[in-house]
């Protein structure tokens, strides 16, 4: 064991970690927005919305993320006519892929609100949009939060896949330092430890949220 290799390259490695966080944040932000639309599409009564969004979700949930990254990497230059570089390709593929997972979380969150709530809301004379914003969504969001945080942790782990198209995020930099210094044991243990700490904090947060009492006064 020679921990100097880590101390010497600390700045370089943590620069990669910053990029990792950047990718994760963009993937979570864009993925969530696109996922909310898809999730609502999956609940739509309009067939022209329901079938395409369902097909989309099933398609992306059925293939490995790593393949999506390559696919977008090859496809994007064709649509745009020019290569936008690895970073854009990674963010686009993460957004498209993770949105399909967010969509399912959002769909089941909305479905978890008991039908009685809808009926009760309508009975008190609420309009559909009031029902959605004041009755269904507040409860649905509360049910979703733990799964959303959990999936954010998964996305954080997934960012390591940006490695494959050469983006210099944390894991790629660990790999590069290893290529130069040949200290695989220390470096990969260190990488594992860093991911472990960050992801454990995320998992812990999601458990905490799960234990928090539900909506005041409700026994859902």
């Amino acid at each position, binding site marked *: 064991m020679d921990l100097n290799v880590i101390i010497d390259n600390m700045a370089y490695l943590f620069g990669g970690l910053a990029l990792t966080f950047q990718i994760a944040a963009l993937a979570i932000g864009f993925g969530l927005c696109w996922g909310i639309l898809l999730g609502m599409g999956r609940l739509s009564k309009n067939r022209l919305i329901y079938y395409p969004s369902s097909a989309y979700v099933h398609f992306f949930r*059925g293939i490995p993320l790593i*393949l999506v990254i390559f*696919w977008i990497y090859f496809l994007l230059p064709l649509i745009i006519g020019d290569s936008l570089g690895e970073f854009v390709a990674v963010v686009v593929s993460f957004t498209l892929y993770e949105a399909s997972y967010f969509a399912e979380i959002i769909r089941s969150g909305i479905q978890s609100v008991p039908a009685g709530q809808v009926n009760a809301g309508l009975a008190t004379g609420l309009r559909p949009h009031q029902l959605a914003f004041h009755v269904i969504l507040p409860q649905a969001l509360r049910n979703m939060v733990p799964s959303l945080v959990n999936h954010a942790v998964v996305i954080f782990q997934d960012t*390591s896949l940006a490695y494959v198209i050469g983006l210099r995020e944390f894991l790629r930099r660990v790999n590069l330092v290893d290529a130069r210094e040949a200290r*695989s*044991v220390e470096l*990969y243990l260190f990488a594992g430890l860093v991911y472990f700490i960050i*992801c454990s904090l995320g*998992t812990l947060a999601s458990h905490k949220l799960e234990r928090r009492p539900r909506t005041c006064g409700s026994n859902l």
Partner: protein
Amino acid sequence: MLNYTFDWSVLWRQPYGEMMLHGIRTTITLSLAGWCLAVLVGVIVAGLRGSRNRWLRALGLAYVLVFRNIPFLVQLFFWYFAAPLILSTDARTWLYDNVPDYGYWCGVFGLGVYTASRVAEQFRSGLRSIPADQYRAAYSTGLRPNQVYRYVILPYAFRIIIPSFTTEFLTCFKNSALTMTIGVMEITHTAYYIDSFTWHGLETTTAASFCYLLIAQIIALIMWRVESRTHIAGMITRGH
């Protein structure tokens, strides 16, 4: 969609057609082998987590936490690059001399021990979802502990666990794509590799995507049949 001419013949033209087929075979055997290891280790870990001994329980929990909170790619790199260095020189030499396809077996091992942490959780939650009344009822009819498990709990647990195991297997199947990073020539790697000769990576990656979807669909269909064949009337399982 400007100046790109699709050339789908890259999928069957030799030698690429042969390579694609070989890639599909590797993906299937790799994920099956990894899955077998995962179920074996997963059941043991689930057993540890349910143990009466505090230390064994902690060990089981630690296993699950460590393997779930470290990205699979980092784990693979650890097994592939770092693990052999921990071994003694003799063991390492033996490993490199006698295991011809080291990357492949490393992939099987890494996939297996990673998936095991997920299998353990599914197995545990499956067992826990069996109502305590089932145990009490079984004991009160005079069955012995091993009979309780053999005739009541396990047949019940099996049916509860099937859907989640199907999902986990499909995840394992998709995760097998990551072994490309340690040089395993499975279908994703093959699709990418053919691009370096032909510049037709778009066709090969599209074809690879459909391979994954098709195989996943077949597996889901088979498991759905198993589920409906073994279904017990009145028992609540996943709705279709």
